[in-house]
């Protein structure tokens, strides 16, 4: 190999290394921009007032994001309560008992669910689910409800839409972790006289526990981060959600709703500071998944 060819080889490798490092660089750049743009706000109103404040009124320079944090937690919890059982059962079905033709039907369906744009989910939610919830709120529950809670745009609606959206994540990760189990587990259990269901319930499911947990946490991350669909169905009032039918604004929707008109200054800084909070939240979720996966590898 001539010297020029050798240099070319090395150059090629260096360029590839640079592209591989880019993901890291972008993550650092994102963190840097969030904190650099949001920092002046922490300095002006203080971290505690920002995270623990209950009123968000940009015009009066009140920037408390606690209602939005509560909102994000509320819609995510509703989404998980619906999506986790449904997702786990569907994943067990796919991994264990689905006949070939059902696999060919369910798997593409899950893929397509994952591929539908979030605005389409939002449109579906606002024209299909919101009217149902509104009907429920105005007829069955009208007497016991505050008038502000009767519009149908609510924690429940947002949770339902999010539940559908995070279903593919939960199904895919759970099915993968069930399929990755050594076949001996099931064989040994069946050989001991356990039924197929007993093997699933007492052997396979517990063995795949950490993988399933990782899937649920990933789904949680998606629900916390989702923006458009939530804006379209949640009502977006920046108040503390007190009921399943109360309108709600999440951290993400707060940013998307106000960024387009927030001029440079404290308002925009507050939105970047919320971005920093979201960033830290996703890093925690990511670390949790990493930790679970690491423990999984160690125990095997």
């Amino acid at each position, binding site marked *: *190999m001539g010297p020029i060819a050798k240099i070319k080889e090395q150059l090629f*490798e260096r360029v590839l*290394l640079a*592209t*591989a490092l880019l*993901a*890291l660089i*972008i*993550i650092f*750049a994102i963190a840097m*921009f*969030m904190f650099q*743009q949001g920092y002046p706000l922490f300095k002006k109103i203080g971290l505690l007032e920002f995270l623990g404040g209950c009123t968000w009124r940009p015009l009066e320079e009140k920037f408390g994001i606690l209602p939005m944090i509560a909102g994000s937690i509320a819609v995510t919890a509703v989404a998980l309560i619906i999506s986790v*059982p*449904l997702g786990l*059962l*569907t994943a*067990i*079905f796919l991994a*264990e*008992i*689905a006949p070939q033709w*059902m696999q060919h039907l*369910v798997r*593409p*369906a*899950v893929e*397509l*669910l994952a*591929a*539908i*744009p*979030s*605005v*389409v*989910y939002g*449109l*579906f939610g606002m024209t*299909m689910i919101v009217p149902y919830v509104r009907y429920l709120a105005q007829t069955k529950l009208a007497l016991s409800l505050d008038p502000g809670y009767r519009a149908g745009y609510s924690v429940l609606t947002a949770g339902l839409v999010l539940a*559908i959206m995070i*279903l593919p994540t939960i199904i895919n990760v759970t099915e993968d972790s069930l399929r990755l189990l050594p076949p001996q587990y099931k064989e040994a259990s069946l050989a001991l006289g356990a*039924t*197929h269901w*007993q093997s699933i319930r007492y052997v396979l499911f517990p063995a795949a526990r950490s993988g399933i947990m990782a899937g649920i946490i*990933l789904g949680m991350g998606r629900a916390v*981060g989702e*923006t*458009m669909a939530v804006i379209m169905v949640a009502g977006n009032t920046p108040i503390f959600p007190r009921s399943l039918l109360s309108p709600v604004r999440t951290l*993400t929707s707060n940013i*998307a709703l106000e*960024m*387009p008109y927030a001029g440079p200054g404290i308002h925009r800084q507050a939105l*970047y500071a919320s*971005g920093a909070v979201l*960033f830290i939240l*996703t890093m925690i*979720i*990511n670390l949790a*998944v*990493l930790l679970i996966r690491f423990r999984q590898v160690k125990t095997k």
Partner: protein
Amino acid sequence: MTAHQRQKAAFCLLWLAAGVTVGVLVVILAYILLQGMPHVSWEFLTAESAKMGQEGGIFSAIVGTFYFVLLSLIVAMPLGIGAAIYLVEYSDNENLNSVINFGIDALAAVPSIVFGLFGFAFFVIFLKPITGGWSILSGSFTAACMVLPTLIRTTQEALRAVPTSYREASLALGATRGQTVRWVVVPTAIPGILTGIILSLGRVVGETAALLLTLGGSLGIPHSIFEPARTLSIHLYLVAMEVGAMDKAFATAAVLIILVFIINLSAGWIARRVLR
């Protein structure tokens, strides 16, 4: 209840869950298509919007989507594929690998609105002299950052599926590592890489939140990549939320769903051809 009866009951539940999952998809697709398709016509696809999208068609959004998606992929493809090649074919430093992998996973987990904030501060404001502020270029750069993880992961899988014997044979013939990668490994992995590109394309088409802050959302037909534009997803959001023209929103949603459907089908088709 005996163990077998219990099994029967449990399996019924499993079938039911799978049925519900498929049922939800069918309901959504049927609902959107039934509401939207009657309003989709040749004129709807080729006419420009009028009155903020209340009347007319979606031609400018289609043009905007096309430019934006194409540019995002042009930016993201070499970066994502290069990173995957490095991780699979070159790097043997475990520590460096796990740090890079953490970065990729972290990037995949960042909410799209945070990408939007980043894109706004960096591409729209900081790099304004280059990108022209809110523009197709700013939006594409932001979207390229977002699809990088998908692209890297799928390309890695495609490269790992290439048998080691191919590499050994090429190296034994006297080819260098770089030559082996360029002339043997990557060509063999092309169909898998293509599947990843198409999946990324689907993600870019559906993206909205980040673009709200970077692409500009203008209704006119963009004449260069330095001008603002809107994609079909943004158009759908603005028409449904701010204009309230639901018939136009449904029609746009139907077009989007069909687009996503075609993208997914072609990805599946390529993947199946590889397995053969």
